[in-house]
């Protein structure tokens, strides 16, 4: 049985190839150091177009469960067309986050329960590490997402740099960084949480 399983096997609304995505994920899983005995399931919601991006990474019963909006892999210039570079970055980032859950992030809540600030911080760390693995990344874009949820402050910018440059964080350290940012953030508490992207964007069952 293949280590990487991609759902759906056939895409009908977008020009994506499950085999290609599985191949990229297989290669990246080795590159990011996800143990060989961890199977990977990648669920892609092809109904979601740009700009409705979102992703989650959990480990359930020893299996890495990744969910992506189809928008995450979509070429912004060509509707419904796969962009390998974007896919590689997001797959690498979420595979790194899945690996984190096996070492140092065992206490972290499942992705659906993360706050926007925690998710943004964790993804900053993931993309920074993906950059050092040689993947094409977009630091300014990631910093914008981080600022949006952790504040447009010097404290947040400093925290972002530490997250981007650091190779090893624990869940407790990440929470502490977010708390630092929150203490320096003059904005009122968010009215609601947007981080449950999967829930918010999911198709009706």
């Amino acid at each position, binding site marked *: 049985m293949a280590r990487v399983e991609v759902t759906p096997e056939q895409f009908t*609304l*977008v020009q994506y190839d499950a085999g290609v995505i599985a191949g990229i994920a297989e290669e990246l899983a080795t590159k990011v150091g996800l143990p060989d005995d961890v199977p990977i399931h990648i669920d892609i919601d*092809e*109904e*979601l*177009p*740009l*700009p*409705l*991006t*979102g992703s989650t990474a959990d480990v359930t019963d020893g299996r890495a469960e990744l969910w992506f*909006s*189809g*928008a995450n892999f979509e070429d*912004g*210039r*060509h*509707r*419904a067309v796969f962009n390998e570079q974007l896919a590689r970055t997001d797959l690498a980032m979420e595979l790194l986050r899945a690996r984190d859950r096996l070492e140092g992030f065992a206490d972290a809540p499942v992705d659906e329960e993360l706050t*926007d600030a925690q998710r943004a911080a964790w993804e900053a760390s993931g993309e920074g590490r993906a950059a050092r693995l040689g993947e094409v990344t*977009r*630091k*300014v*874009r*990631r*910093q*914008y*997402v981080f*600022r*949006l*949820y952790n*504040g*447009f402050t010097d404290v947040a910018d400093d925290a972002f740099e530490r997250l981007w440059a650091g190779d090893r964080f624990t869940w407790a350290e990440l929470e502490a960084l977010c708390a630092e940012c929150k203490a320096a*953030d*003059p*904005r009122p508490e*968010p*009215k*609601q*949480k*947007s981080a*449950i*992207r999967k829930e*918010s*964007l*999911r*198709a*009706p069952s």
Partner: protein
Amino acid sequence: MKKILPVEELARDSRFVRVQIQEAMMDPRQMKVAERNTGSAKLEPERPAAPDRARQLMHGIFMGELQALEGAGRTTFDFDDEDVPFQLKLDMARQSWDESRHCEISVKLAEHMGTEIGEFSEATFLYEAACAEDALLRLTGVNRALEGLAIDVFNTMKLFGDHSGDPVLAACEDWMLADEVTHVKMGSDWLRRLTENDPERREKALEFQRTVDKLFSLGGFRGETDENPIQLARKFREMAGFSNDEIDELSEVTVEAQAEAEAAANAEQRAS
């Protein structure tokens, strides 16, 4: 130099890819998303995918500014002094200068948000609306309808900047918004002056504006409910010379546009 430059001849480098707006609106995924309960469509930091929604909108604003620059520039050049008053051309030249500044600001804002020029496709319908052969239609179609849309978009982005605590975005959008109010007012003032003794011509021009307004409401993109990502900015439209009746009428047009888009989507779904 050629007058009335066709859209195909706009200067673009290899970073830009064009798309037909109909293609985007008829994307079957849009109909699938419409079936989901994704809550308020207003652009707010709490909404799912807010960063990428804002980045894509910002890129759209940049493309709009570029085409507005090209449109105002063409209006300065396309008409001779016997066609339109020289003062009108001066106003268009001033607007071109504003739009070129807006292009530069939009590029900086896109960079601030981590967006590359050409990252998203370009729809050229704004410039196409700026190609009317009658200068009066450009005043209603571009200055009052499209620059009016710019008021709504900039106000929405400014509020997004305010809510997200982004001082750069909020300040830049506020400055550009002030210019847009002036551009719309130019359109309102010239419309009145040029049709002072010709109510029939004025009505024809206003009819063109209604058509453009409906087209640019993009099936619910703009309106006054939580279902509309871009909110109609009543206060700023009043400042730009719109009467309350005109704003109410525009509000009705946006509702009609949304209803028509929903009906088209339903018909498409039944057919598939």
